[in-house]
């Protein structure tokens, strides 16, 4: 092959494996699931394509409260993550010195423990007579009728705990990239420590927060393991519904329709979020 022709083809050849992978394992199953979400039938008689859009309206009307609860829990847990992660990321980026990578490793350390084990450990912490709450209760430091497990709080705390690193890392990267001279320039121009943070450091780190919010909120709102283990039967999220409709009830079309509804809500939500608070506009808003 001639040189220029090969050079023109090279980029396409390079994306080919990835593109094939996405086609085979993402787009194709996605298309099959879209088709499935419009079918009717049951496991015994089989499923047929009937373009039954009612799967979607049924899903929303039956499980609307679960959608709302999922988004609410994910929102609370995302806020908790942001509040917990920002100071930690700030400290590592600004004062971590030579040990920055060690501290980042410590943030990621829980991730070397399997997901289920982490949630079960969290359950152990929150359980009424566990090693944490038990002694406190025995010494009268907690009211006897206070239950943490099987509450919405337990689910939100579990979500925040499990997704914290996904907030720490992007915020850290954004803070780390700030030129220290720019912060010095703020001090040089009479800014107090708070003003330098408010007018320079915070706005320059917002793209990291923006990324962190997406990386935590999206998987949180579809999560079902935390609600399953920590939330008990009264605090289920939409993920639990999809899981039980699919695996327990074999209601494949309904489960698929619920999945796509969630996906649509998230995509629209992120689009609005990005438009309203997109990187540049976040900065614009924070400037004053």
């Amino acid at each position: 092959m001639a040189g220029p022709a090969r050079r023109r083809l090279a980029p396409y050849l390079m994306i080919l494996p990835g593109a094939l992978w996405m086609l085979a394992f993402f787009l194709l199953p996605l298309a099959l699931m879209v088709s499935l979400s419009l079918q009717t039938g049951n496991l015994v008689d089989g499923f047929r394509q009937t373009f039954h859009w009612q799967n979607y309206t049924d899903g929303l009307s039956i499980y609307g409260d679960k959608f709302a609860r999922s988004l609410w829990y994910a929102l609370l847990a995302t806020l908790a993550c942001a509040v917990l992660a920002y100071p930690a990321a700030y400290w590592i980026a600004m004062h971590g010195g030579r040990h920055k990578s060690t501290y980042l490793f410590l943030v990621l350390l829980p991730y070397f423990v399997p997901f289920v084990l982490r949630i079960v450990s969290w359950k152990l912490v929150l359980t009424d007579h566990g090693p944490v709450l038990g002694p406190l209760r025995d010494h009268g430091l907690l009211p006897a009728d206070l239950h943490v497990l099987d509450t919405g709080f337990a689910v939100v705390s579990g979500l925040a705990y499990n997704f914290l690193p996904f907030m720490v890392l992007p915020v850290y990267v954004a803070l780390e990239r700030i030129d220290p001279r720019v912060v010095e320039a703020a001090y040089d121009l009479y800014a107090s420590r708070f003003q330098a943070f408010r007018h320079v450091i915070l706005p320059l780190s917002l793209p990291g927060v923006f990324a962190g919010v997406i990386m935590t909120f999206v998987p949180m709102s579809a999560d079902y393991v935390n609600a399953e283990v920590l939330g008990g039967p009264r605090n289920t999220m939409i993920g639990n519904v999809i899981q039980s409709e699919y695996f327990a009830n074999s209601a494949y079309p309904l489960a698929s329709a619920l999945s796509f509804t969630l996906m649509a809500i998230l995509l629209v939500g992120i689009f609005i979020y990005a438009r309203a608070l997109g990187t540049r506009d976040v900065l614009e808003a924070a400037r004053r």
Partner: protein
Amino acid sequence: MTETKHAAAPPDVGAALPAIELAGVAKEYRAHGETVAAVRGLDLEIAQGEFFSLLGPSGCGKTTTLRIIAGFEEPTAGRVYLHGADVTGVPANKRDVNMVFQSYALFPHMSVWDNVAFGLRRRRVPKEEIRARVGEMLETVDLTGREKRRPAELSGGQQQRVALARALVNRPRALLLDEPLGALDQKLRQAMQVELKRIQREVGITFVYVTHDQGEALTMSDRIAVMNDGRVEQLGTPREIYERPATRFVAGFIGTSNLLAGEVERIGDGRAVISYGPDGRIEVPLRPALPAAPGRRLELTVRPEKITIGTERPGGALCAVRGTVTEVVYLGTSTNYNVSTATGADVVVFTQNATSADHVAARGDTVWLSWEPRHSYAMGAAQ
């Protein structure tokens, strides 16, 4: 708190106080268990309205000195005074000096206007006044019409001018500039040198300018402190520093210097006479406090542009040294010769290509170098 050093002086002589005074300022760092001195006992007085340069190679302590004046670093010893007030220990945001950073350090998320207004807003200057002063300052630096641009949308030279405006708009007691032209290309740098000097004259603010570029320092400064290894090697006007370098280091760092050394034959008429190689002779004007006596070796410098190159031994009172041409570099308006003298010293000669009889020597030719005795500058005893 700040405390007035010259408490007895009436306030109206404030202008006579040095804008910046460093008294015995030293800065040491601890790195890997070792103490490294960045600045060693610096005493400097910079006058009001002066264009003052700190010139030296990287690592000489010039930037540390500037950062100590700005308040980003605290000296490990000594005091810093701004207009007579002791500001040692006062943080940067409470010092009435502003800095132009090497990489400009503009706020990337703010427009040109907001960058320039930053300091005034922090000082709670009334809105109306901010508008007037920022507008006026942008006009001074020729950026009117670009108020809404972000720094990333500007050229290097424009960013440079925003950095300048952002600092000057606060009307600081002194402007501190840390290699501000380092990132610009040669042509723009020269234009900005003239521009900086114009702006400094216009606003009348003291400029403290850190650079490793001797040409820049010579062009713009009223006075230059040549720094090396945390100390000031020489403090003087550009002419003094160029014509009469105090140390071997200064002679080598500023411009091109030819270092020659020889044994003093006799002393007379305020001059030392050195015989140099076969037939060669150098006369050096003596200065007080220069240890020169017959029989002792003396080191001297001659600037390349003072030397004439010829094929005949010049007569009269001229200094004359014989050598062999090792290199000829034609530069259009001038020609540079490298000549190896009889005693092995390398001498550089610049000649203007003013006449057509310019080509006086080729590589390998034996030539005579000559110059007027007053252009010999004695450095001190040679090793």
